[in-house]
């Protein structure tokens, strides 16, 4: 077990190394971040001074080594644009993203009953409708769904705001918008957008799990015993399909955080995904690199936790999860 964990962490480090080299060299070749920062009236001396202040006057490899040295001490550099520590910028934006994703994931739970329904009676027209609907929710691009929701609710009906985060309330140092009515109004559309795709996935997972469990002996036995169908459903079926559903939900949480990039851009949601896109476009390298490193660690740890939990529940499942 510890070997397995250490292995994973080493993998994460490897990925981070490869990715940071890529991003460093790529952003270095593609454009000049200082051109956006420096006043157009600045003389060459002032431009050089800025490059020097940002460390951009050194060779790219020296820059990279400096970065590695600092990163090892937990310093990911300062944003070129604002001069703030990159990590701090990301952490400031994190609550908005996490809030959005949690609400969206909670919403996606509606997929579970629909999935059970589709799994119990696979031939019924209602099940086919559910499955076709899930294909749509699953395959249509997220930004497109957002766009349609904006068109319907914000432009045509005019009942919900189309963008930005609503009023927030501070709990300790963290600002939440789920504590105000205005906050919920702003949250509704982006959360629905992100949640729909996840709900579609939930439908498919639940249906597959249901169909796997139904032919099992204990269900047949329960039926033969004459138990009420509702009891079979609640106790025997639900208990057994819950494990795969929770596993997938856990893994999808990570995916949703990454995918919030798109939702946040559509709705101008001030989360860290929007920050990533803005930073990519302005070549704010420290922020891009810090975001990616954080994301890699987050995803690796999430995967690890899910795997360990799974193994704790079902030791034979080890191979299955890794697949």
């Amino acid at each position, binding site marked *: 077990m510890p070997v397995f964990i250490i292995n994973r962490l080493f993998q994460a480090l490897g990925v981070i190394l490869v990715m940071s080299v890529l991003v460093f060299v790529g952003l270095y070749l593609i454009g*000049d971040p200082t*051109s*956006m920062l*420096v*006043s*157009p*009236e600045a003389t060459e001396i002032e431009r050089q001074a800025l490059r020097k202040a940002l460390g951009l006057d050194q060779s790219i490899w020296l820059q990279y080594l400096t970065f590695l040295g600092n990163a090892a001490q937990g310093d990911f550099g300062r944003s070129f644009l604002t001069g703030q520590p990159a990590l701090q910028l990301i952490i400031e934006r994190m609550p908005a993203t996490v809030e959005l994703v949690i609400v969206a994931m909670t919403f996606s739970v509606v997929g579970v009953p629909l999935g059970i329904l589709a799994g119990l009676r696979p031939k019924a027209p209602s099940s086919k409708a559910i499955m076709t609907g899930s294909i749509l929710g699953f395959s249509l691009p997220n930004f497109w769904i957002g766009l349609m929701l904006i068109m319907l609710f914000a432009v045509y009906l005019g009942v919900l*705001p189309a963008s930005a985060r609503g009023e927030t309330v501070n709990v300790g140092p963290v*600002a939440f918008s789920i504590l105000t009515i205005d906050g919920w109004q702003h949250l509704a559309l982006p959360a629905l957008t992100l949640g729909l795709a996840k709900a579609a996935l939930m439908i498919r997972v639940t249906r597959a799990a249901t169909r796997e469990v139904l032919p099992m002996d204990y269900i047949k036995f329960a039926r033969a015993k004459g138990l009420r169908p509702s009891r079979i459903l609640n106790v025997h079926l639900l208990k057994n399909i819950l494990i795969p559903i929770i596993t997938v939900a856990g893994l999808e949480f990570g995916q949703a955080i990454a995918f919030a990039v798109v939702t946040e851009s559509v709705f*101008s949601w001030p989360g860290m995904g929007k920050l990533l896109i803005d930073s990519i476009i302005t070549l704010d390298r420290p922020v891009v690199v810090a975001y990616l490193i954080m994301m890699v660690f987050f995803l690796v740890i999430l995967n690890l936790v899910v795997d360990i939990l799974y193994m704790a529940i079902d030791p034979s499942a080890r191979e299955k999860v890794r697949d």
Partner: protein
Amino acid sequence: MNSVKTRLAASAVFLLMGAFSLSAADLKIGVKSEPSSLDPQFHVLVPNVQVTFAMFDPLVMMDPKLVPQPALAESWKPTSDTVWEFTLRKDAKFSDGSPLTADDVVFTFDRIPKVPNSPTAFTLFTRQIAKVEAADAHAVRITTKQPYPLLVTDIANLPILSKAAASGPAPEGKTTVEFNRGEGLVGTGPFKFVSWQKGADLVLERNPNYWGKPAAWDKVIYRPMTNPAARAAALLSGDIDMMEDPPTTDLEQFKTNPKLSVAEAPGTRIVYIALDQKGEPSPGIPGQGNKNPLMDKRVREALSLSIDRKAIAERVMGGVAVATGDLLPEPMFGAVKARQAAPAVDTAKAKALLAEAGYPNGFQITLGTPNGRYVNDARIAQTIAAMWTRAGVKAEVAAAAPPVFFKSRDNFEYSAYLAAWGNSTGEISTTLRSLVGTREPSKGSGTSNGGRYSNPDLDALLDKASATMDDKARKELLQKADEMVLSDYGIIPVHFEVPVWALRKGLSYAARADQYTLPQDVTSAK
């Protein structure tokens, strides 16, 4: 369409809200972008400077039309070619009640070069200054390195800090991080700091110790809203009282909406096309061998003639642009009156000129443009490319993300490119020096001259003007220089961007040419 219905519903809500907001004199402003820092000397950037100027005063303040007016200095005069004396106002107090003295001014100038990591440092405005000293408690003497007529406009960009409040153990005194936490933010301005939450509201309140007319607002709230449509929606629903840059697509409806008012300022930001005139074969013009057609003045004139500037201002810019043939609007220093009106489009003449220059079938050209740096930049470029193509010059647009664009421009990869230049001095010398002065970046000449236009006569005129302290003589020199470039088609002006604000009815704003949103200039009609 349906948005009209939306707007009506929103207006109803808005009326109700209005009834409540009358009692408390709060002003909520939807700003495009929040400041990158509260340190008044960290970053020369509109969102930073406008917040600073609500809390701090400079010695000399530009009025909305960019004419210098007394602020903390009640008067100033040059005592020699390089020495200026500024007399401070005796009744000026900081928000903590302490009086302003010459020491504060000296401290302010001292701190500027010491602020680390600044993306655009305020040294931009102090590079001609050799020395700043206190002549007495209420007089400051500034010595420049050479005769420098623009000292007063430079000084207007420098807010005065309180020495007592902004001192600290670090070399620069209070650090940028400390300022961001609200420490040391003690100024003489109409408002004082209350709180700031990154990514959300920045709150100021009236400064009871302000030396001028007390501000009309108890509280001012800046709310960053990057999306223009979101700002518009918030204004319509009464969430905010005022917004920066309403979307160009909505402006017509805003102007006719009885619940709103719109404030426009004369724009000083010129959108222009630069043409490669280095003399070597140009990278974006294939099939012409060793020749660069743009070296021919007739070709440049043809390109200018084929642009329908009025159509761009109306259709692409939604009316928030003034089509022009000059680089600075007229009442400002050095602009040429006869050049102000946009030259009429004349495709036939353009074709004739091209034929005369030896290009009866035109040629191909790539027009570079940033995408997302200036208002509708890529769209303007595409429209101009279409106009050029109709005149026979087959143009293609290369749009790139801003940092990529600027890198390509600085590597001279464009034969023609679209860019914009904001003049903050109200005098055309800085514009000409940067855009068409012979490229000598070490001297600060031609810093944005990506077309590498070079005209020794022009450089000589600019040099002479910059050492001429007499305003009238300098103005004549600058007008002559401006006319020289424009009649040579060394650069092609397209339009001035017009800064626009939208406010709820009953509020008015003294719209500023420099695009700053200053709460002290927002007044209520009641």
